[in-house]
């Protein structure tokens, strides 16, 4: 079953066409990789899906619902969570609070409830706290709960972003270069984590430059070049695709 469906998506920045008529599907429960050379428009695609940018034309359908013009927070509450290429944590807040941010959209209490703290509000807070600790445990960061995000190691910061995204209870998680800046051992663990995420029933869409990770983890790969899709298929298919090889290695004519 298709969870996310992109159809003829186009985004221009001034004269530059960052994303050009891109279409692909992400099936529920799969791990899909989005690859391509620098500047191919991968992150722009992500930003279009999550509502950070507005598409100039084309359709984004999530679970049968058109989400093109929804604001980011609505998209998150529908079940799409993301991490960022350049880590965007709340640096001056604790790791726990970073994850609690993710719990936010599944909670109800507002300002008045906060001031008077009725029992249901306290129960909700406690539940959120448990959940946040659970997600920290999931990425093996429970011991870091009370440390400020800015004091975490680079790899842990990436994991913390994953935990924050998972706390939103997403059906689709979008990871933007999750292995960026990680060493081999951390990357291996990350692949494990991504599989575990899949095992929880969450669909994964990721951008990654680390080809070994992509080939190992993904069931389907979409390749972008200069904003346009040039290939789509399973890892072995992509490995054998001439255009992909040209895009990555360059052609002799150039």
């Amino acid at each position, binding site marked *: 079953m298709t969870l996310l469906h992109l159809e003829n998506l186009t985004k221009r920045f001034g004269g530059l066409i960052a994303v050009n008529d891109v279409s692909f599907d992400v099936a529920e429960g799969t791990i899909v990789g989005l690859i391509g050379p620098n500047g191919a428009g991968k992150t722009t695609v992500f930003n279009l899906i999550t509502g950070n940018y507005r598409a100039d034309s084309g359709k984004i359908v999530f679970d049968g619902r058109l989400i093109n013009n929804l604001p980011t927070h609505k998209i998150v509450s529908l079940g799409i969570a993301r991490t960022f290429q350049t880590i965007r944590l709340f640096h001056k807040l604790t790791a726990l609070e970073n994850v609690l941010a993710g719990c936010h*959209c599944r909670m109800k209490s*507002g300002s008045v409830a906060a001031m008077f703290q009725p029992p249901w509000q306290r129960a909700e807070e406690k539940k959120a706290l448990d959940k946040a600790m659970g997600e920290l445990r999931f990425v093996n960061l429970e011991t870091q709960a009370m440390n400020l995000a800015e004091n975490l190691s680079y790899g842990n910061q990436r994991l913390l972003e994953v935990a924050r995204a998972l706390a939103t209870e997403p059906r689709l998680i979008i990871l933007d270069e999750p292995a960026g800046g990680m060493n081999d051992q951390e990357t291996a663990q990350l692949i494990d984590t991504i599989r575990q995420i899949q095992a929880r029933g969450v669909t994964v869409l990721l951008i990654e430059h680390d080809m070994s990770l992509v080939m190992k983890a993904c069931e389907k790969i979409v390749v972008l070049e200069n904003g346009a899709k040039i290939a789509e298929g399973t890892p072995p298919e992509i490995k054998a695709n001439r255009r992909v090889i040209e895009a990555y290695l360059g052609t002799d004519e150039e």
Partner: protein
Amino acid sequence: MKNKRWIVYAAFSLVLLTSPAVLNRYWIDVLNVVGLYVMLSLSLNIILGHCGMFHMGHAAFYAVGAYTTAILNTVYAIPVLWLMPLSGLLAGLFALVIARPIIHLRGDYLLIVTIGFVEIVRIALINNVFGITGGANGIFGIDRPTIFGMKISTPGQFFYLIWFFVAVTIYLLRKLEHSRFGRALNYIREDDVAAAGSGIDISHYKLIAFVIGAVWAGFCGTLFAAKMTIIAPESFNFWESVLLFMIVLLGGRGSIAGVILGTFLVIGLPELFRQFATARMLVFGAVMIIMMIFRPEGILPPPPRTYRLDRTAEPEEAA
């Protein structure tokens, strides 16, 4: 360590509560002004400290509250304290209306727009808008508040009235801080893109923060009108907003204890410097720079929130 902090706060409260017994009327009144400003600064703290919006027009909301009280009290003779909820409500409504179209403005652009609002409000008040604000004269003859038939008029009586409301404010705002709402404001302050990416409706929260801050400023307006019995536009000028802005930053953004201490300094110091006569504001300006240089994040930046975690032991705070 946590207990120790509570002892400090309890001791401070005790000293404060008993101080009217030993202080003369002047110093009690200084404490009254400090109390009003604590409330005002704490309300600005929600907007500026917690949510990180550059808001330099808080006096506008304060003015709406004060004028609501003054007009309804002098024209319809409604008891002053009854008007407090209404003043807060109107100030909040006013904030809702003006903030809606500007909430998306960033940093300094928001700053000048809020300055613009406070100036527009002041000019409107001075020009006797709708014929009800009394122009430059302001409104005089506002009743003293009464509680259970007791008329509040001496500085000592006002002290307890004002600081009672300050205590309520601190209690409620502390709860607000330690909640989903309070955290959401901090997320927005730290990184609004990441906050939106975590499912937080940024403009909604910004707007609500504005409105809550304004409601509180409206409450303060009532107390101010009752305390002064006369209000005039110059009490709500741009400089007043700047003062509040400085209090929050000097005390520590998002820190209740810091903002209280900041108020004592910003409102108290010029009173202390009265011995320098005409040079008192000069000394004040210099102290301002020095304090910022030595404590750029404010005198008492907020400590990280603590949470009771079930399985782990209660974590120690990091400060």
